[in-house]
């Protein structure tokens, strides 16, 4: 629980190694009394069809061992590990030499020779540094272990296991493995066998295909396939039906009311540029609103926060008026760019609402914090408000303050429906297929899991676990 001192931290690797060595030695000593037999036929192989960095170690469990506890799997160090271990060990040892020499010399100088402390420390440092230089070659790092190598403990496994998948290896280094048997001794202690024979060199290289990730690949293929299929379906002229979207039917009502009251309609296409899908969807909805407005002869005003959005909006509104046969009523000056600044734009738009008192306000696109300010101002002048956005954090405010809100995907669906483009409709349909799959998997999965718990059926539980761990998590 406690934080180790900084010295301990420096040498934590060293300390760990020392403990290991002591353990190994202890085991060797105790092993001479009643050592269980070591596992035989220890074989290591690169794990096939993986992303690299993993190997499989297998062994034969020795028979007739009393109190068999499990097995310890060890591996050799990689070259880089050896280098850093040796470096650390030497560094720590030399630091120790230096500190010792400094202490000795300082005490001698101050205590025996009566040198002033400020001189003594300097002289002692010189001596200490010389001591390091003198003893540099005598400090050699430990390099011991069975088979003349240095080993690192990978893991301990239970008694009935005869294989271990070793991960987190470097795909570019070669490794050897060995296994110990661990068993209880008669006096209640734990004894470790002699080391097994070491395995051959294994290079845990990456293979051509990562099999573990194949389920993900097929699921992607399935989802993409259904989207592409329905795009193709729609392109070939076959009908795609989309359910009625409540917010859209309200458009007519809102525009109608604006005409009745003789007040304008305000349309805000969000504050992002055309590269945001929500802005694109917003402009599509604008097309529909403008068409209705042209038919009813209502005035529609569109302040934008980006100049590109302005051009797109003008184009769209123009073609809507064209479609309604009212090109004479189209006024491009009512669609204009204000400023890129978030709050500058908001201040302008809310000012506009207060001045012009529009009968209907549409907020369709990507919104951030300004959603709240706009919706509030619109509400205060008694406008019918219809919003559409996919920003999860802004939806609550629109829902609370507007009359209709196109929520998230509904907004995109509305855009697809209005645009009538086969690509948009097809991909919407494709996504719907994805949702059917989700629903089916959830219902079946939960039912099977419930049955498994209630009946206690092991095989069903395994099936559910397998599905969750292999298919659903790549």
């Amino acid at each position, binding site marked *: 629980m406690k*934080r180790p001192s900084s010295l301990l931290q*420096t040498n934590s690797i060293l300390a760990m190694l020392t403990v290991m060595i002591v353990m190994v030695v202890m085991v060797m000593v105790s092993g001479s009394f009643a050592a269980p037999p070591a596992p035989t036929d220890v074989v290591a192989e690169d794990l096939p069809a993986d992303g690299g960095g993993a190997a499989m170690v297998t062994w034969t469990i020795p028979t007739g061992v009393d109190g068999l506890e499990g097995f310890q799997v060890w591996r050799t160090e990689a070259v880089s590990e050896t280098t*850093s271990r040796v470096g650390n060990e030497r560094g720590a040892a030399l630091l120790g030499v230096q500190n010792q020499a400094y202490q000795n010399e300082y005490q001698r100088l101050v205590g025996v020779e009566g040198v002033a402390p400020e001189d003594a420390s300097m002289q002692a440092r010189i001596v200490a540094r010389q001591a390091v230089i003198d003893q540099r070659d005598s400090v050699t790092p430990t390099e011991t272990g069975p088979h003349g190598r240095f080993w690192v403990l990978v893991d301990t496994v239970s008694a009935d296991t005869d294989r271990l998948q070793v991960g987190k290896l470097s795909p570019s280094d070669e490794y050897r493995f060995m296994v110990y048997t661990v068993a209880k001794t008669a006096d209640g202690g734990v004894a470790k066998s002699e080391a097994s024979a070491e395995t051959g060199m294994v290079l845990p290289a990456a293979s051509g295909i990562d099999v573990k990730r194949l389920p993900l690949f097929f699921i992607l293929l399935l989802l993409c396939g259904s989207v592409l299929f329905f795009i193709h379906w729609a392109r070939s002229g076959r009908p795609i039906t989309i359910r009625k979207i409540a917010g859209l039917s309200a458009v007519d009502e809102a525009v109608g009311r604006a005409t009745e009251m003789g007040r304008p309609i305000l349309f805000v296409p969000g504050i992002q540029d055309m590269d945001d899908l929500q802005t694109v969807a917003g402009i599509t909805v604008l097309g529909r609103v403008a068409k209705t407005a042209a038919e009813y002869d209502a005035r529609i005003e569109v302040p934008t926060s980006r100049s590109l959005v302005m051009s797109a909006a003008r184009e769209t509104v123009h073609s809507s008026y064209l479609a309604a046969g009212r090109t004479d009523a189209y006024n491009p000056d009512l669609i204009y760019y204000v400023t890129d600044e978030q709050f500058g734009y908001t201040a302008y738009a809310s000012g506009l609402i207060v001045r012009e008192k529009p009968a209907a306000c549409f907020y369709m696109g990507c919104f951030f914090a300004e959603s709240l300010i706009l919706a509030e101002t619109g509400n205060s002048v008694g406008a019918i408000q219809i919003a559409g956005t996919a920003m999860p*954090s802004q939806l609550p405010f629109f829902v609370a303050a507007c009359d209709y809100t196109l929520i998230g995907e509904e907004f995109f669906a509305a855009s697809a429906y209005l645009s009538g483009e086969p690509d948009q409709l097809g991909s919407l349909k494709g996504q719907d297929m994805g949702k059917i799959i989700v629903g089916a998997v959830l219902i079946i999965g939960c039912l099977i899991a419930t049955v498994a718990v209630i009946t206690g059926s092991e095989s069903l539980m395994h099936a559910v676990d397998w599905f969750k761990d292999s298919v659903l998590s790549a």
Partner: protein
Amino acid sequence: MNLIDRMANLDRRWIFLMMGLAVGIPIIVIGITGKTLPEEPTPLAQAAFDVLDGLEPGSRILMAWDFDPASEGELGPMATSFIRQCAQKGHRMYFIALWPVGAQMIRSSTSRVIGGYYPDLVYGKDWVDLGFKAGNEAVIKTIVTDFAQYFPTDARGTSVNAIPMMEGITSLADFDALVNASAGYPGSKEWVLYAATPLKKPLIIGCTGVQAPQMYPYVPNQVQGLLGAIKGAAEYESIVNNWVRSEQLLDALESGGITEPTSSELAARFAAAPSEAVTWTTEAAAASMSPEAKTKLIELATAPIPGIFLEAQRRMGPQLVAHLLMIGLIIAGNIVFFATRRRGGSQ
């Protein structure tokens, strides 16, 4: 004009003023009295603490500070407490930022906590500031497999090869846990999708109130600890403060010769009720302790918690008053709405 009409036409500046007072007055009161409201930790804050507490000292923790001054009010206290817990526990901290201003957030939180309260931590050995990198989720995606590709140097321009604690770090897989304080994009969602899910690493998230609801579905499979908004910060802060105090008390007790398990029990007891430490030192059980150790123990038990570790708990005061104001405003607004509507509307 009756009351309803007056209210319906209320100038919004009066509401602004109410909000200003609702936040301002509690700050002054709490600032002068120094009293904070008690915190009952919820399971998610406790889980965040437990993940870091369960790791061995010396574990490698990636601390991703993805926020800016605009959200420091919510996330600053979380960052402070995260660092405090890791520093006290002895974890090695690696700071990175995906927001341009995040680099300053790293500097301010580390200088406040490590500089002020853990000066014995060594830069490059116990903590390292790797600074900001552009690329949003692409940064995460890359360092999942190759760390050095994006981070050739730390924020101070030192090659990572020359930083002792970077030894053995080749990818995100080499870390023991990820901690993220996030104010938006890129942030917690990206850490979940690009790092925690493929690597299956413990991820602790501290995020703003705006993001928090969207992070709940990831708990507990993809996110192990979640601190949402200032409330999450205050809960976690109080857990960490209590724990740090009991750790310090444990040290004092053990250096005074009290051994486990008595020492742990006592430390927990005194952390909860500091006054008991004073009475306990007069009892027979404490006879073996030296007078210096006793003084130290009493001092530790009764010393006030430094102000920077109470930031979130202080802010819960204005929060309480402002929440009540909000509820009052919504109810009042609806009363006005329904009253005017029943009379046929005033518009």
